[in-house]
């Protein structure tokens, strides 16, 4: 296994987390818990910062669209803080890969060919790749968080928190009234074809070495339910070679 996380980037990341901790958490609607308290509870309940004691992770999952008869295998490699490589193998469609190397976001699939992402897609991948944002909502990119209502999502009562990002985008999370876990998240997903509003419900939290993650993520897109089922979360077994950019992307990033 290779050493894949640099001390320098970790220090930089901790600085960002500290910066996020003092980012404003707007006063919540009357009678609702403050967003910062909901987030802090969630982080404590899930051990969301556990990733900081690891160099890398490997998430294995299946992505099912039962009504369409599709089932794909999926693997997400994450070298902390923010290098990501994703593989999704869809029978009949082929292997779709994508990633972020800390600077460049890219994707390769048989439908579109290789792409180096820019604009909103790059911004989305950059944010997704930051564990302080995706695991714990403690990123400096979140400029404010505000509890907006108590509602029911995914069959659970939850407090809905609105996040405003530096880019101006708005996303929502809903934290369970009962146990503080995130039960749903709502955002606009950037794709090569434009943006789609997505509501994802989260359930079946499991502990992966002190890191509690939802293992069932369900979305509905165009009438189709799509379910990601996480089967494994492994720490510190990502090899440097696995993170190498695909040949096409290397070429695209090289000036002719």
């Amino acid at each position, binding site marked *: 296994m290779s050493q894949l996380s640099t001390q320098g980037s970790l220090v930089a990341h901790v600085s960002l987390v500290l910066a996020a901790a003092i980012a404003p958490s707007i006063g919540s609607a009357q009678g609702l818990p403050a967003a910062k308290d909901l987030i802090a509870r969630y982080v404590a309940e899930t051990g969301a910062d556990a990733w900081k004691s690891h160099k890398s992770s490997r998430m294995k999952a299946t992505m099912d*669209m039962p009504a369409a*008869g599709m089932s794909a295998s999926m693997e997400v490699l994450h070298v902390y803080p923010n290098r990501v490589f994703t593989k999704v193998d869809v029978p009949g469609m082929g292997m779709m890969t994508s990633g972020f190397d800390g600077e460049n976001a890219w994707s390769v699939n048989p439908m579109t*060919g290789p792409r180096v992402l820019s604009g909103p897609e790059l911004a989305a991948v950059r944010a997704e790749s930051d564990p302080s944002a995706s695991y714990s909502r403690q990123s400096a990119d979140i400029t404010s968080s505000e509890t907006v209502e108590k509602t029911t999502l995914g069959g659970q009562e939850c407090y809905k928190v609105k996040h405003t*990002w530096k880019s101006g985008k708005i996303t929502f999370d809903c934290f369970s009234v009962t146990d503080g876990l995130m039960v749903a998240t709502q955002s606009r997903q950037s794709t090569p074809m434009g943006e789609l509003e997505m509501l994802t419900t989260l359930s079946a939290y499991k502990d992966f070495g002190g890191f509690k993650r939802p293992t069932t993520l369900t979305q509905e897109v165009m009438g189709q339910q799509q379910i990601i089922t996480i089967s494994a979360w492994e720490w510190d077994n990502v090899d440097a070679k696995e993170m190498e950019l695909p040949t096409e992307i290397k070429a695209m990033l090289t000036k002719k």
Partner: protein
Amino acid sequence: MGLGTEPRLRHVALVALLLVVACTRQVESTNDVPPDRDPFDSATAVASFDTVWRLIRDTHYDRALKGLDWNALGAELRPRVVRAQTIAQVRTTLTELLSRLGDSHYSIIPREALPSADPSGSSPEVSYGDLGMDLRLLDGAITVTRLDTGGAAFAAGVRSGWIVESVDSFPVASVVSGARKLTGAKGRVAAIQAALAVSRRFGGASGTSVRVTMRDTADRLVDLTVERREAEGDVVRLGNLPLILARMDTARVLEPGGCVGVIRFTSWMPVLANRIERAVGAFGDCLGMVVDVRGNLGGVAAMVMGTSGWFLPTADTLGILRLRDAELRYVAIPHRVTADGRHTRPFDGALALLVDAHSASTSEIFAAGLQGTGRARVFGDTTAGQALPATLYRLPNRDVLMYAVADFVTGRGQRLDGRGVIPDEVVPVRRRDLVRGRDVALEAALRWMRGRQHRASSP
């Protein structure tokens, strides 16, 4: 910023979009499909009706459901399903419900026509045989319009322009008569269905035989027994879709000013993406290319983005998907590198597209997109007018609903469904040309390229 609690949720949205199909049913052979022997279950039949009714109510691109009183329609048709005694009656009622929408891509795919439940992508283990010929309904007759020279029909002496009269005692006239009475968009769809209904009877396990009565070029009746040969190409499983044949052929035509590359493919299946890339690369030195999507009934719609990117240098809009709550675009994604990492650029020579009445769905999105940007000149017959992006839903009774997820308009805002792509140069398919071995659409495209070349080289 598309952020989820896990770093890759964006993929779920992306896969869903990429999975959108725009295709008409293709290669499944009803001959080889075992008849449905499941006992009829009224409860699952009603549940299936309710699922279809609800899914369309909740997802149709037009929130107003095209002005239909959907509740009243449900109330009218549901009792028929409650009373139904057979699966055929249920399907008839569901088809009526769907037909009221007046759009393409709403259909019920019978469970018997589906591949077995082991989805594994490209399926070399599947034995799919055919006679290696394309059929069209021309002047009221199912006519052979193209033959594989390595196919069983060609080997048996069948030639372009022959007419199919019967297949295994099945009288072709029975499927043709209805189509002959219809005109316009409905007539085009009926003609496709008639030709496909006959084509499917030629499909089956390779090595099995089919008896066919045909009329040759001199209108003499000819009786043949032909053994099916393994179809060339890959038979692809894609979720709940019936099996789809993915095949690509290329040819280099030598013209006075240089070569013209001809690329023909039978469906928009990702397994062909690399082959299309290689073909475009191989013809990169030619003065022009012809992309032949005649008979191509569609497939994975997102493939138009990558495929167009071999011919367009900028991210031009090819078409717009109008969902109920969003608008998405198919855009060309120009290729700058090859799969093996060499720098390249989209082909900038002359580009002609060949289409016909059996160019449907994704093929229409592709043709309209490149025609609309001015990048390609389109030759042939008006296309099918079946151009809605769709997806599939397995119903409680295990039939599959295909339903549109969006309306589709061209980059210029023109709707294709029911209209089709009108070629820049309309070149109808005629039996007398087929009999003479002529491909008049290809000839027209080559003639245009020669003229273009001549003008470019004239002082």
